[in-house]
């Protein structure tokens, strides 16, 4: 068959989500943030929630998320997204309210907001991009940084005696009575991308149904901070991240 006969509208099986606008995303080539943005746009569109969705973007590389997905957005001070989402959802309970946060934002400066919003059982979704580093500011150590992992502020590798241990905060969140769904996913492969999409759908549905707080962690790459090519970063993720951050549902009620 000729290409012209294949590339026709009626034969299209994968389409770019229309909620993802034409703006050129500022992310580094191969960054996991882009994949998750695409999934958020796809899921909101497929669930028909574009008119009621309100995202809260973080401080971190995803600060400009509001430029790329055509829904309503708020932009929170560093770590405060769950607090802003709490107020927004309580004032407008019919809206889909979600945060989109990095590991520095969520598990360092925003630990208190995150834990208490989850523990109060706020009817929001927390999307947690765990790339084990502060990407935006130049690749410093985060609470999530793995033992032995080199960053700008632990250039010889993270040491437990000096820097403490990596924090698997989703495991903590799963213990709280206010969470209904806590899952850890990733986006390095086509199958993983499909699973993350299903997880986001479930979390958003929980939020609309008022079931409590849902958390979707995405074990992600920051190839620039890790100083690897995008392909090598995906390999490093598989070889190193899953031992500390194993995939799967931590809670599903």
């Amino acid at each position: 068959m000729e290409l012209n006969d294949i590339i026709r509208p009626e034969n299209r099986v994968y389409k770019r989500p229309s909620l993802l606008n034409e703006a050129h995303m500022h992310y580094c080539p191969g960054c996991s943030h882009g994949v998750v943005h695409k999934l958020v746009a796809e899921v909101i569109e497929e669930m028909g929630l574009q008119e009621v969705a309100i995202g809260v973007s973080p401080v971190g590389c995803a600060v400009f998320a509001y430029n790329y997905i055509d829904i309503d957005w708020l932009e929170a001070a560093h770590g405060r997204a769950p607090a802003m989402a709490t107020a927004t959802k309580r004032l407008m309970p019919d809206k889909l309210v979600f945060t989109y946060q990095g590991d520095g934002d969520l598990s360092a400066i925003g630990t208190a907001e995150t834990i208490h919003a989850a523990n109060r059982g706020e009817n929001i979704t927390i999307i947690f991009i765990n790339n084990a580093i502060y990407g935006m500011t130049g690749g410093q150590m985060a609470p999530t940084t793995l033992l032995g992992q080199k960053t700008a502020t632990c250039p010889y590798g993270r040491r437990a005696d000096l820097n403490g241990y990596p924090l698997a905060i989703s495991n903590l969140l799963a213990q709280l009575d206010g969470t209904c769904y806590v899952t850890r996913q990733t986006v390095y492969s086509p199958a993983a991308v499909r699973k993350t999409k299903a997880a986001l759908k479930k979390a958003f549905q929980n939020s609309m149904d008022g079931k409590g707080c849902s958390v979707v962690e995405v074990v992600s790459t920051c190839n620039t901070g890790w100083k690897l090519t995008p392909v090598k970063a995906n390999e490093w993720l598989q070889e190193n991240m899953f031992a500390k951050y194993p995939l799967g549902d931590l809670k599903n009620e």
Partner: protein
Amino acid sequence: MAKINGAVTVNTERCKGCNLCVVACPSGVLDLKKNEVNNRGYHYAYMANPDKCIGCSSCALVCPDACIEVYRVVEK
């Protein structure tokens, strides 16, 4: 036996040449343009072996910049 014909389009100006689609493709269809770059200076992805595409969407799923759309025709 049914024959599956696939094809993809790449938004070459959005592409950042990250190579993730190239390694995700199970059929060796894609590659990055070696001697050409887009307006931002990236070696963009293209179908180097179009006849091998099965329209599985693996490349499109992993693309961080949503550059790829996929087409598929099954001939009975």
